[in-house]
């Protein structure tokens, strides 16, 4: 019996999650506590609460039965519009059987409308926000005039009665105490506005919502105040007559707009905050004018201005050619502004933009950048994102003897390789190599190979040696395949390789600002392995060759399982791939996921979801950045998104400041052994540490060690304070 109940609970687990998320989604959140708090708030009026709950449940069950994407149902995407409709109907009409039936219908309709709008707006990469709710609610308001059996409700007018039935005298007293707190008018209006989002007219509802918002996101909370007050002040400045209560019916538009554009769909930053000074007044103008139109239909504007302003702004931002305004739109929604911000800044720091297809160095050995991006000779204007490479000796010379002949130059006649897998698009192979010091401006690019690596992603290798190119258009090439030899053809007074990335397959196309992956850079006396690199002039660059045992240990293949055994514990991880082709390690026992990306030379963990008590979490921290090739004593450094390291309580204050300054840091360091092991069976030990700091002061250090041999990863150890975990690894 107990087992059956347990099974039933398990089967209905999705519904519980989806319902709480549907409530939280009203504020863009997926925080369970926030969702439940909002749910309770709607039950200040039991009947209203029931209406909302009924609408949400019918919507979610309908979505499930119709077979929509389960993860979206769980997130509450198809529930929050139904909730708003349900609550709204519950407030406006007297309870009756027919009303419940209408609420049930509206729930189903809101799913259909949500999916429809998702399809239409999704094509433009836009969210459907609360448009389904507005359309349905307007529809009901228009239709209800003819429904004779539906009586308009007078509840809400008699709040005290409602509360008395709900919580007796103590609740009344609490309510009275709250109502008559000495709160300034504007703050009262702010709370009322928050409550009005889901038709609540009590201060209590607003306060609970505000607290929930604060707990869910510090940035969203700050933005809600900012949006509200900009709107409030603009009303005063324009001299529009309003009362605090009437303002609250439209004030939430500015709150929601501020959260959406200041931090939820745009990465929170100083600029995203500043833009609100323009956007909110625009929203005010739009609200006032829409009111004039809708009044003639006896319809409220409700959240329509918020929807319009947000969609117009997000859509317009998509057509920018660069991000000089510093407003970065989100590309991976993690449902809180903080998470979005921390992972975005961390991602930009680690991988930059446009690096989904790794492009590697197109040669063997160590070369020098003799002209980088925005170079002083020819890398200008449309061709500014290019590199020239040559080989230098210890004295910094690029040639031996007098340098009178191309063959005196170290780089001349060296193999040039395909920088990544692709298809050869274009080949020029018949331009004479120049006499040293002369240039051929007629065939500016000389002998050239252009390779297509993906849509709008081509690499171009120029000034190659005459008749040295063994490939022809249409050939597919593997990364590292020889595609020619370094020469001195075209606009090239002495032998060098010109390398650029471009978006079209033509010789002479303008260049793309696209980084080179996994480059060992020696620059100004410092050596560093850069996951993405734009090496500057005079940098020495080379690639590392992967060690087979490192690849075996860390190049996870989808389908593989890894078993980690500690003294008292065991975890089994599966390598999986999700709907969006992101790869991750999945630990079923702890329901944790560690997302990673892996290329030919490196492994990077990008994100963790789940239990921080799991071994998988410690592994995610320790294998955060690993290169499969290494030189003796190589050191890798990286930084974590702080929300993945610090616990939520300790970053509470940081969250407020995060759009402007990060004072918390979490740094990663990995050290490779100093000595070479040749081909021996000796195990390889990789040691590293993780440092947490606040204002540059060290707060906590952890140490870790991997032992690797020819069979792959053998063991993993993690030590933090008195905690020491040692796990033996097996992979199958």
């Amino acid at each position: 019996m107990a087992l059956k109940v347990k099974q039933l609970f398990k089967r209905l687990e999705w519904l519980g999650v989806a319902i709480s998320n549907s409530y939280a989604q009203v504020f863009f959140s997926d925080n369970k506590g926030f969702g439940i708090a909002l749910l309770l708030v709607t039950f200040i009026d039991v009947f209203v609460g029931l209406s909302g709950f009924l609408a949400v449940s019918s919507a979610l069950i309908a979505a499930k039965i119709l077979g929509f994407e389960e993860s979206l149902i769980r997130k509450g995407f198809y529930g929050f519009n139904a909730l708003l409709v349900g609550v709204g109907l519950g407030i406006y009409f007297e309870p009756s059987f027919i009303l419940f039936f209408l609420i049930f219908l509206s729930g189903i309709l809101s799913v259909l409308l949500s999916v429809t709008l998702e399809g239409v707006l999704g094509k433009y990469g836009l969210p459907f926000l609360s448009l389904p709710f507005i359309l349905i609610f307007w529809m009901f308001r228009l239709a209800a005039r003819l429904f004779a059996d539906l009586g308009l409700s007078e509840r809400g007018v008699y709040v005290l009665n409602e509360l008395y039935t709900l919580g007796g005298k103590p609740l009344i007293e609490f309510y009275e105490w709250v109502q008559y707190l000495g709160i300034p008018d504007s703050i009262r209006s702010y709370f009322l506005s928050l409550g009005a989002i889901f038709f609540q007219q009590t201060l209590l509802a607003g306060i609970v919502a505000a607290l929930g918002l604060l707990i869910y996101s510090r940035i969203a909370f700050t933005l809600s105040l900012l949006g509200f007050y900009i709107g409030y002040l603009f009303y005063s400045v324009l001299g529009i007559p309003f009362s605090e209560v009437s303002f609250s019916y439209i004030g939430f538009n500015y709150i929601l707009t501020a959260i959406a554009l200041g931090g939820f769909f745009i990465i929170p930053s100083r600029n995203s905050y500043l833009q609100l000074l323009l956007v909110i007044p625009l929203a005010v103008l739009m609200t006032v004018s829409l009111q004039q139109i809708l009044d003639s239909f006896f319809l409220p504007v409700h959240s329509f201005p918020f929807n319009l302003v947000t969609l117009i702004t997000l859509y317009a931002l998509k057509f920018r050619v660069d991000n000089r305004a510093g407003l970065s739109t989100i590309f991976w929604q993690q449902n809180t502004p903080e998470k979005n911000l921390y992972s975005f800044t961390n991602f930009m720091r680690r991988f930059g933009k446009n690096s989904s297809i790794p492009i590697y160095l197109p040669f063997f050995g160590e070369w020098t950048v003799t002209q980088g991006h925005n170079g002083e000779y020819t890398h200008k204007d449309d061709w500014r994102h290019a590199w020239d490479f040559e080989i230098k000796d210890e004295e910094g010379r690029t040639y031996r003897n007098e340098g009178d002949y191309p063959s005196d130059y170290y780089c001349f006649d060296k193999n040039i390789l395909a920088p990544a897998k692709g298809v050869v698009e274009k080949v020029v192979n018949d331009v004479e190599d120049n006499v040293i010091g002369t240039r051929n401006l007629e065939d500016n690019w000389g002998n050239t190979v252009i390779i297509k690596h993906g849509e709008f992603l081509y690499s171009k290798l120029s000034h190659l040696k005459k008749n040295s190119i063994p490939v022809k258009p249409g050939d597919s090439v593997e990364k590292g395949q020889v595609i020619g030899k370094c020469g001195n053809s075209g606009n090239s007074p002495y032998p060098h390789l010109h390398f650029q990335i471009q978006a079209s397959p033509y010789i002479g196309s303008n260049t793309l600002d696209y980084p080179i992956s996994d480059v060992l850079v020696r620059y100004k006396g410092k050596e560093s392995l850069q996951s993405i690199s734009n090496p500057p002039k005079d940098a020495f660059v080379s690639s590392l060759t992967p060690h087979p045992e490192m690849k075996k240990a860390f190049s996870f293949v989808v389908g593989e399982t890894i078993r980690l055994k500690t003294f008292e514990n065991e975890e089994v991880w599966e390598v999986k791939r999700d709907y969006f082709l992101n790869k991750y390690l999945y630990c079923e026992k702890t329901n944790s996921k560690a997302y990673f990306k892996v290329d030919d030379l490196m492994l990077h963990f990008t994100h963790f979801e789940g239990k921080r008590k799991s071994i998988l979490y410690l592994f995610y921290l320790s294998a955060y950045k690993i290169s499969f090739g290494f030189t003796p004593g190589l050191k890798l450094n990286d930084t974590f998104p702080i929300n993945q390291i610090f616990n939520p309580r300790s970053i509470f204050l940081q969250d407020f400041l995060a759009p402007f300054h990060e004072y918390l840091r979490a740094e990663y360091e990995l050290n490779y052994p100093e000595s070479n092991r040749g081909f021996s069976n000796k195990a390889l030990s990789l040691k590293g540490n993780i440092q947490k700091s606040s204002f540059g002061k060290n707060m906590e250090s952890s140490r870790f060690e991997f032992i690797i041999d020819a069979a792959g990863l053998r063991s993993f150890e993690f030590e933090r304070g008195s905690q020491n975990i040692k796990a033996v690894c097996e992979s199958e």
Partner: protein
Amino acid sequence: MTMNKLTFERPIIQRINAGLPSKYGMPRHLEPLSHIDGVSIESLLQEFGSPLFILSEQTIRKTYREAYRAFSSRYPKVQFSWSYKTNYLNAVCNIFHQEGAWAEVVSGFEFQKALANGVPGELILFNGPDKSTEDLRIAIQHQSLIHIDHFDELYEIIHLSKEMEERPKVAIRVNLDTGIYPLWDRFGFNFENGEAWDAINRIMTSQKLDLVGLHTHIGTYMLSTDAYRIAATKLASLAVKLERKYGHILQYIDMGGGFASKNTLKGAYYPGTDTAPSFDDFAEAITSALMTSDIKPDHLPMLILETGRALIDDAGYLAGTVLATKRLSDGRRATILDAGVNLLFTSFWYDHDVRPVAPISDQSEDTTIFGPLCMNIDVIRSNMMFPLLKKGDRFVVRRVGAYNMTQWMQFITFRPAVILLDKEGNSHVIRKRENLETLNSQELIPDHLQKFDL
């Protein structure tokens, strides 16, 4: 006012060589060499005595990097291994180890030397036909890479592997016809007659050894790069065959050494500086053969090179003093130096580049250059156009870094000091001049021979 007295120049009779250059070329003026890396040779001789071996650290490192660059800019995995026999002075070895080279040894003694220098056992390649059972045992224990020379050695290793815990890491040395003469077929297993393939099969079926590589060493002082291309192609074909039959992927191909230095061989028409191929030439031949072979791109083995001579020859100098001059019976001039074949073993096959240290005279005379030994064969150069040095004048021999400091003889006289000039031009004694004590310390006299009366 006093006039400086002109230095005395002994009179000579010389045929006038004016007019068009003959087929022997223009009359050659031998440029003196007074400084090495900016340090005066005269001052070094005064400080450390004559004769004196001088090594330039700067040249060693520069040459190594040039060689490494030539290969690493053409091939993804390149490893040099310092050939101990070429010059096993510890300081020299350590320069190469600092630059990243592993160690290549051909005897138990060299193996011990490499270990004592701190080279990890697994980075030592053990070559040569002379490996005792004890040597092999130690090499297996150290996980060193044993390059098997013959079947007797192979059987011995298989035998040892049965009683030892460690799995021996082995490669076989392959000799092959690369179209050059003489064919070095006394080392390793022959490729053409199938012995090499046979040896590979025995290793694979024994299941006791890890076959990690293939090794060849096609000759010495090679002036043809094509021979290397052929050798690399043949080794690559073995690697492909091995992978096809056993699914076994080789970790390395060792192309040995034998690259020519810029010394001139006796009897060569052109000087070595003009004929010796560059590192780039050798590298191009070897790497292009491997890259175009049928080995799968992601299974390309590491390329190991054991070149010794070409890396160190240029960095070594032998400086000394003229002991005497005399005229021979046929009228030729003879100059007697304080360094002979006891120190310059290589003078048996090179026409060494001997130079005066100080500018002496524009005139030169057909001269035989003798060493100090009481042996008729002690000839450094049998005839060369040499200026008119006299007793006490200093000379220097260029390009003597390879083999001389390992093959030198303690004969009749002591072996001299060896100094190293570092990057800043500071001199360091890296081997002391021998003295009576050095030699006597190794000798024992039986009691009945302790005393004598004369």
